[in-house]
């Protein structure tokens, strides 16, 4: 097994994060024959006695994790985002309902996953897990933030779902950067519009903000790595200071980050929101970049949404 790669794929950060918290003897890792892909394999190499291989049987894995959590362990169970969904009801009833600290990682989330095609491209995971009481839902944007957020999960006294991405993206954080579960990270400040993004779209949002600034539109960009609980304090502040929002995510526009924001904004403000995301359709095979173009998950998509949002300002 190779050492964790130095690139910026959030799944690599998950793998490193597990190693960082491994000194806590309560931490155990559960795998469903995708450890090399989700990157829990590095933990397995170092700590085989605390790694439980469960075969291609995700429903069983979720409840084994629950049983271990009820016995004082802190289980980290991973597979592809899409295959966690097979065990949705197990997560809901067996983990979240009793409030057990099981940390699920779904890797290869979003259409960014690319050539594997639509069967592997989960575009609904953030939405479904967000609806479950007790769940914390996280989607980091690069390896460094994924590592940091993974390591913070040890202190979270309840269940979580973290989506990671397969492919490398430019790093947006440096080692030692401060970020906390539940607090959006403001990566760029501006007064005309706030772009709230997560995952691989955060980097795209920053590029879009640069383009918009050359048009005289100054944007705040937030890495909203924690989709639930949503940092509504920050949203409220930005609603006052910017007066318009765009959300950007590699996920359906139904129920994900955009959904979360619209729920809060529509019941608390009259601030306009435009969403960039997958418009209720399945993906297909193709290069990541091609698929992002096809779905409008790109700079152009964000800039157009920004102009629309600003034109709707009161």
């Amino acid at each position, binding site marked *: 097994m190779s050492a964790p790669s130095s690139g910026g794929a959030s799944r690599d950060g998950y793998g490193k994060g597990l190693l960082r918290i491994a000194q806590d003897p309560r931490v155990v890792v559960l795998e469903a024959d995708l450890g090399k892909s989700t990157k829990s394999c590095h933990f397995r190499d170092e700590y085989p006695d605390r790694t*439980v291989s*469960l075969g291609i049987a995700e429903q*069983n894995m979720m*409840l084994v994790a629950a*049983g271990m*959590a*009820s016995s004082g362990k802190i289980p980290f169970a991973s597979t592809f985002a899409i295959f966690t969904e097979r065990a949705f009801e197990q997560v809901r*009833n067996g983990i979240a309902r009793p409030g057990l600290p099981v940390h699920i990682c779904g890797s290869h989330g979003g259409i960014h996953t690319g050539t594997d095609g639509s069967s592997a491209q989960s575009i609904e995971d953030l939405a479904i897990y967000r609806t479950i009481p007790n769940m914390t839902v996280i989607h980091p944007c690069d390896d460094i933030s994924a590592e940091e957020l993974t390591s913070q999960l040890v202190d979270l006294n309840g269940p979580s779902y973290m989506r990671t991405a397969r492919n490398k993206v430019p790093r947006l954080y440096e080692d030692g950067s401060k970020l906390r579960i539940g607090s959006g990270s403001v990566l760029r400040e501006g007064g005309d519009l706030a772009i709230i993004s997560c995952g691989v779209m955060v980097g795209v949002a920053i590029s879009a903000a640069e383009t918009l600034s050359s048009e005289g539109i100054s944007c705040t960009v937030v890495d909203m790595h924690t989709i639930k609980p949503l940092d509504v304090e920050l949203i409220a502040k930005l609603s006052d200071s910017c007066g318009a929002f765009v959300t950007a995510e590699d996920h359906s526009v139904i129920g994900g980050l955009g959904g979360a924001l619209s729920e809060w904004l529509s019941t608390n403000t009259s601030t306009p929101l435009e969403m960039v995301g997958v418009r209720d359709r399945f993906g297909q095979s193709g290069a990541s970049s091609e698929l992002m173009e096809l779905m409008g998950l790109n700079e152009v998509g964000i800039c157009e949404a920004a102009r629309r949002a600003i034109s709707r300002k009161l």
Partner: protein
Amino acid sequence: MGDGTRVDVSELEQMARRCRVDIVKMTHSAKSGHPGGSLSAIDCMVAIYGTCLRFDTSNPDWEDRDRFIMSKGHASPAMYSILHQMGVLDEGDIMGFRTLGSVCQGHVDMNWTKGVDFSAGSLGMGLSFGLGCAIAAKMDSSDRKIWVMLGDGETQEGQIWEAAMAAKYHNATNLRAIVDRNRIQNDDFMNVQMEIGDIGEKFRSFGWTVKEVDGHDMSSLVDVVDWANSEDGGPVAIVANTIKGNGVSFMENNPSFHGKAPNDEELRIALEELS
């Protein structure tokens, strides 16, 4: 319990009878619930709780207790009746069954009831959960044992067999499953709905050590539970041949009392039969 002293069989039979009274009273009072599968499982549970389960009634959260995972969580009246007879729950608790705010939820729930180790209600999950407890116990070098009560209809769920496969692979010698083989599920008899065939043989094919027993003969149950408790070549499965509704004539082998409570007159007859 768990001090190794053997309770005598007739005492266990008396305890099971008192549990049956609790079960019919609870479901009657709630006007809902699942008496059939509670009555079929209760003798097995009394044999386990009454002879070998290490469990401190004054400290139900004791970390190193044996675990009892009630996977067929709809048979919650059986669980509550045991906890009542052991003094963990009182009469008021069990008679609040299924009412707002009651510690006795419709399906067993570890967050609501002291002495309950698993939140069930969705069939097919408990064996996996028990396996997780078993793996954790081994990691901690604890000799605690994990018992899982399964319904026979429940074994139609694929997840049961995922867990059966994984239990052998992980050498879960501390895991014991007991299947309440009453041959009835929700809608009808299993041979009408979906006959699963020889459940013991299926566990055996996954590498489990298996015995069958008459699930209403207390003395055989005590023997088989004693065997299972000390058998270390596991995982171990016991297939208990039972009668759904056992102990109440009109509920016996009657699919309609799977999820139906006795009415006033039926309660009267049931209590008479159980006296």
